């Protein structure tokens, strides 16, 4: 009987709808200069000329060399390489979120 109730418990657990988490897509990288920075929003002008708007959050790792930096340390005009993931915001709009930012030395 314990086995049966165990199996039932497992199946119930499998059947409960999991929390819906946005699936993050591929990892991307952009290299260029900081066009603008405004709180959580960062604009990067890539070396190819294209400008991307990227979200910076508290999980974003920001480095200058091996030294950890804050988002307030990012200054317009400086060289930057951003590693980011693409996902959808709550409204369904595509959004780039930085996972790692490397700033010029």
């Amino acid at each position, binding site marked *: 009987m314990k086995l049966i109730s165990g199996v039932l418990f497992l199946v119930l657990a499998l059947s409960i709808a999991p929390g819906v988490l946005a699936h993050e897509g591929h990892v991307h990288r952009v290299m260029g200069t900081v066009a603008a920075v405004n709180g959580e929003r960062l604009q990067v002008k890539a*070396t190819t000329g294209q400008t991307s708007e990227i979200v910076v959050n508290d999980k974003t790792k920001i480095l200058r060399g091996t030294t950890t930096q804050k988002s307030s340390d990012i200054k317009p005009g400086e060289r930057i390489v951003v590693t980011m993931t693409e996902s959808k915001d709550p409204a369904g709009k595509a959004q780039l979120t930085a996972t790692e930012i490397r700033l010029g030395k």
Partner: protein
Amino acid sequence: MLRTAVRVLVGLLALVGAVAVLVGASFAARGISAKNAPGRAETVVARRLRSIAIPRAARDEPNPVPASADAIREGMEHFADHCAVCHANDGSGDTEMGRGMYPRAPDMRQPATQNLTDGQLFYIIENGVRLTGMPAWGGGSEHDATDNWRLVHFIRHLPKLTPAEIETMKTLNPKSPEESQQDEEMRRFLEGGEPSKAAPAPHQHSHGGKG
């Protein structure tokens, strides 16, 4: 007596039917997709089952490799080469592979992993975990076992990992020639060099994970 037996049989059949309906409903709703993370209840049950499945003798086995800076460093090098592609160098599981697995690669800095015994960690590394992305790394040799016990030391070190150690690990991660070229290009660019024509374009894929 016969009546009781019939009642038990009917009860069992009803239970099997209910189970079949629930399994069917689950697959109808979600199919075999790995997109959504497992729910809390499923995670609790799966971890409990994993714990039960590890033999007591294995669970209680002490780490035969003495803890030392060398053991942690060798574990770190091994982890960067073999494990970080899914688990990330910092053990967060925040990689392209780890985020897409069902179940997700765990954040090994958290109590759910750190509270496992050395023996449990070693058993999982050696034997893998069925129906997850965790492969069995035990090759049966003493050399493999020693490497895996060193990994256990390194997993214990993960919550204290320093940014400098993560940078060292990045140099040890397996990379394709293209990724190595991109990393070199990035380093040169950040130091003031001019970008070459081979510079990574915006949104170009990279397979490196966080940390």
